[in-house]
C-alpha cells in the first residue's frame, strides 16, 4: 500500500532563511496577501530583493541575498518546473533568471517555496533540505570535497552521497567558484539560470550546491476549474491544435533552426555582428536537422511540459570528440559558438558549449567575449602572444586551442583570465577603442536575437533591468493578428495597434508592445510557467493563466488585478536599479548597433532619431519619467507601492508626481 501523502495548498508560501556566516536556517511563512499581490516566483523575488538588499550593497559580500523562488503553480502541471533565481548582480543591476528542470517542484514538495541565502561560509558548504513534514528542515553540510568539481561531476558525487534517485540539485561549477563574470547556476546537468552572475554570487558565499527532497502532494482549491483551464492551455500548446506555426517546430527541432532561417532576413549575427548574414551551407551544417540526424540520443523535458522534445540529449559517437555527451542544444549555441565566431563545425560547437556547461560558464558571456577578442585580434589590438599562442581568427582554424581555452576561462588562467572578465571589463583593460567591438548592455553580453531588424528587441535589451535578456519579452513578435480582434484587445485592456506593432523596423508602437510583453511575461514567470510556452494567443490573452491561478490558489482576483501584479513586478525591478543609480542614459543599445548600418540589407543603425522616440513611448506608457526613467509617484501609488516612493524620498531620489 502506498504511504499516505502530506498535502499542501497554494495560498500561502514559505521561505527558508539561511545565514551562511552563522550557519543557521529558519523557516517562515510569507504574508498570504503576497500571493495575490506578487503571485510568486519572480514577483515575490522582486519584492524580497528590493526589501532585503539595500542600495550600495556589495554584490560579492555577505549582505547580498540570493533568492530561489518557486510559486503557487510550481509542482502542478503548469509550472514546468521553473524557478526564479535572483540577487544583486556583481555589475550592480538586478540579477534574475528563470531555470527549468525538476528542482522547483521538489522544493514545493518539501514545503519550502523560497530559499534566501545570506552571509558567507568560512569553508565550502552545501545546503540539504528535507521534507518539512518529517521534522528536520534543512542542514548545512561540508562541501570541501565538492569544491572545484565540474557540474556533471558535482551532480554524480552528490547523487552517490545522498543515495536517493529523486533528490534534486542546483549547483555551481568552477567558473562561479572563481567568481568569473556572468556565471549562472546549473541543475539537471544541462539546465541553467541566473546568467547575470547569480552563480558568481553563490560562489562568493561558499555555497557549492543545494539538494532538496520532498514527499508532499499539492491540492488545488478548485479541481474541476483547474482541469478545465488546463485543457484550454493544452489546446493552445499541443502540436495538433495550437494555432501557432512555431509550436511543432520549437517543440521538436528546437530553436537552432533559426541559424538557417535568420541569414536570409539579415538577422544572424555573424563575425561579431560585423555582418548579419551567413553562408547558407555553413548555417545548414549547424542547424537542428543535422543535429537531430547524427547526434540526438533522446528527448528530454522539464517538469510536466506539454512539448515533446524542446530539450534533447546528444552524444558524439566517434572521431576526435568521440564519446562527448551533452544536452539542450538551443538558440544560444548556434549563434555564439557558430555564426558569431564563424564556426560551422557542429561537433566543435557542441564541445565548446558542453564545456561551458561542465565548467559552469555562461555561453553568451564566453561567445561574445571570444568574438570581441577575435575582432580585436583582426585589428591588431590583441596578438598571439597576448592569447597564449592562440590564433584568434574568425573561422576557428585553431580548434584545439579553443577547446583548451574554455577551462582556462573558468580557472582564470593566462589569457582565460582576460576573457573571464566579460567583454565590457576586458575592453577597459585592452582599451584602444576595443569597446566598440563589445556587444553588451549594462556590462552584460547580448543574446541571439537581432536588433536592427526588430526594433522591439533593440528597445527590450536596452531597457531590461537585468541586462540583455530575451526571456523578459519573448517571443519578439505578437501572435498572429488574425487570432485576436481589436475589440478583444481593448476588452483585455491592451492599448496596442497590432498592425503597426508587427512592423519590425517601424519605431511606432514598439514602446507599448514592449510594455505589454514585459508585463505579461512577468506574470507568466511569477506563476511560474515557461515563457517559451507563450504560444498561440497565450501572450496577449492571459485569461487561461488567470483561470489556472484562481483555481490553484482560490484567490478571487479579478483580471485587471492579476495583470497589475506583472506591472508591479516591472516597477520593483526598475526601482531597484533606480536606487542603484541607473537612469535613462543607461538604457542604450550596444555601440555597434547604434552606429553601424546592417551591410547588404539597408537596415539603418539605431540612430537617436529612431531609438529615442521608442524610449519615450515606453517610459510614457509605463508612467515613468521620460527624462530620468524613474517611476512617477502616481504610478507607484496606483500599484500599491507607496513604500517604494517613500524610500526614494528618504534617499533623496526625486520622483515626479
Amino acid at each position, binding site marked *: 500500500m*502506498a*504511504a*499516505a*501523502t502530506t*498535502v499542501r495548498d497554494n495560498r500561502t508560501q514559505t521561505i527558508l532563511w539561511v545565514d551562511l556566516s552563522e550557519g543557521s536556517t529558519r523557516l517562515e511563512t510569507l504574508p498570504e496577501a503576497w500571493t495575490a499581490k506578487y503571485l510568486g516566483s519572480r514577483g515575490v523575488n522582486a519584492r524580497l530583493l528590493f526589501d532585503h538588499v539595500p542600495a550600495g550593497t556589495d554584490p560579492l559580500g555577505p549582505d547580498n541575498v540570493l533568492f530561489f523562488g518557486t510559486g503557487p503553480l510550481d*509542482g*502542478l*502541471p503548469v509550472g514546468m518546473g521553473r524557478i526564479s533565481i535572483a540577487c544583486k548582480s556583481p555589475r550592480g543591476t538586478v540579477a534574475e533568471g528563470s531555470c527549468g528542470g*525538476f528542482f522547483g*517542484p521538489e522544493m514545493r*514538495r518539501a514545503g519550502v517555496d523560497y530559499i534566501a541565502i545570506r552571509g558567507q561560509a568560512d569553508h565550502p558548504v552545501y545546503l540539504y533540505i528535507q521534507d518539512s513534514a518529517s521534522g528536520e528542515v534543512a542542514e548545512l553540510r561540508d562541501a570541501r570535497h565538492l569544491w572545484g568539481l565540474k557540474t556533471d561531476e558535482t*551532480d*554524480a558525487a552528490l*547523487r552517490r552521497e545522498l543515495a536517493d*534517485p*529523486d533528490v534534486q540539485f542546483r549547483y555551481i561549477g568552477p567558473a562561479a567558484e572563481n567568481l568569473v563574470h556572468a556565471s549562472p547556476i546549473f541543475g*539537471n*546537468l*544541462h539546465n541553467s539560470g541566473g546568467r547575470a552572475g547569480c552563480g558568481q554570487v553563490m560562489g562568493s558565499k561558499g555555497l557549492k550546491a543545494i539538494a532538496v527532497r520532498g*514527499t*508532499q*502532494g*499539492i*491540492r*488545488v482549491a478548485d*479541481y474541476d476549474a483547474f*482541469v478545465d483551464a488546463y*485543457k484550454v492551455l*493544452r489546446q493552445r500548446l499541443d*502540436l*495538433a491544435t495550437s494555432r501557432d506555426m512555431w509550436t*511543432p517546430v520549437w*517543440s*521538436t*527541432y528546437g530553436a537552432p533552426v533559426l541559424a538557417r532561417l535568420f541569414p536570409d532576413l539579415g538577422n544572424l549575427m555573424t563575425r561579431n555582428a560585423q555582418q548579419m548574414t551567413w553562408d547558407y551551407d555553413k548555417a545548414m551544417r549547424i542547424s537542428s*536537422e543535422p543535429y*537531430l*540526424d547524427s547526434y*540526438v*540520443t*533522446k*528527448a*528530454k*523535458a*522539464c*517538469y*510536466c*511540459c*506539454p*512539448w*515533446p*522534445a524542446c*530539450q*534533447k*540529449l546528444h552524444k558524439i559517437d566517434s572521431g576526435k570528440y568521440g564519446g562527448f555527451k551533452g*544536452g539542450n542544444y538551443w538558440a544560444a549555441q548556434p549563434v555564439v559558438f557558430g555564426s558569431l565566431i564563424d564556426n560551422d563545425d557542429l561537433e566543435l560547437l557542441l564541445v565548446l558549449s558542453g564545456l561551458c556547461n561542465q565548467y559552469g560558464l555562461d555561453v553568451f558571456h564566453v561567445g561574445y567575449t571570444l568574438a570581441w577578442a577575435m575582432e580585436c585580434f583582426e585589428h591588431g589590438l590583441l596578438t598571439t602572444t597576448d592569447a597564449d599562442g592562440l590564433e584568434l581568427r574568425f573561422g576557428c582554424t585553431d580548434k584545439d586551442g579553443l577547446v583548451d581555452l574554455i577551462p582556462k576561462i573558468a580557472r582564470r588562467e593566462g589569457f582565460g583570465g582576460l576573457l573571464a572578465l566579460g567583454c565590457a571589463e576586458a575592453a577597459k583593460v585592452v582599451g584602444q577603442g576595443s569597446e566598440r567591438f563589445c556587444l553588451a548592455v549594462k556590462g552584460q553580453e547580448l543574446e541571439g536575437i537581432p536588433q536592427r531588424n526588430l526594433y522591439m528587441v533593440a528597445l527590450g535589451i536596452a531597457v531590461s533591468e537585468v541586462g540583455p535578456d530575451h526571456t523578459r519579452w519573448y517571443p519578439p513578435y505578437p501572435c498572429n493578428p488574425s487570432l485576436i480582434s481589436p475589440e478583444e484587445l481593448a476588452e483585455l485592456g491592451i492599448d496596442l495597434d497590432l498592425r503597426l506593432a508587427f512592423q519590425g523596423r517601424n519605431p511606432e508602437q514598439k514602446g507599448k508592445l514592449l510594455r505589454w510583453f514585459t508585463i505579461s511575461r512577468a506574470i507568466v514567470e511569477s506563476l511560474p510557467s515557461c515563457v517559451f510556452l507563450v504560444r498561440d494567443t497565450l501572450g496577449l490573452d492571459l485569461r487561461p493563466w488567470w483561470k489556472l491561478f484562481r483555481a490553484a490558489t482560490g484567490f478571487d482576483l479579478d483580471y485587471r488585478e492579476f495583470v497589475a501584479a506583472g506591472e508591479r513586478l516591472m516597477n520593483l525591478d526598475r526601482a531597484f536599479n533606480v536606487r542603484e543609480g541607473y537612469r535613462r542614459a543607461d538604457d542604450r543599445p550596444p555601440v555597434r548597433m547604434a552606429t553601424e548600418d546592417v551591410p547588404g540589407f539597408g537596415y539603418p543603425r539605431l540612430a537617436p532619431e529612431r531609438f529615442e522616440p521608442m524610449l519615450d513611448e515606453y517610459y510614457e506608457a509605463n508612467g515613468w519619467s521620460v527624462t530620468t526613467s524613474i517611476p512617477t509617484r502616481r504610478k507607484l501609488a496606483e500599484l500599491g507601492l507607496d513604500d517604494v516612493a517613500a524610500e526614494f524620498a528618504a534617499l533623496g531620489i526625486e520622483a515626479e508626481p
Partner: protein
Amino acid sequence: MKRIYVIESLCNGCRLCETFCSSLASGVFGAADSRIRVIKLPGEEQDIPLIDCDGRCVRPIDDSGGPTCVSLCPTGALIYEGQEGAAAKRLELAAARQAHSLFKVVAPWKWPLPWRLT
C-alpha cells in the same frame, strides 16, 4: 483486451503522467498513490515509466476512450492498445524512424504535419 503500453525510448521524463494520475482519484497532484511512476537513471540518460494500472481510468480527461495519462503524454510514449495494436504501433514507429530522425523524439501519431517514407 486493451491496456497501457510503454514505448520507453520515447519517454522524455517529464513526469506529467505521474503528477496527474494521483489527482484523478484524490485531487492531489504528485501524491504517492499514482499508478504510474517515472524512474530516472542517474545522468538523466534513461526515463522509464512503470505502470501498475489496468487502464480503466477513474477519470478520463477527454472522450478518446483512453486513460488520462495516455491522452496527456506529449511524446506518444504511452499508448492504450490491445496486444496486436501495440505491436503495430511499435512497427509504425520503427518505420517512421527509418524515414525521418524526427521520430527519435516524438511518435508519428503525435506529429501533425505531413511527412513521407522516402
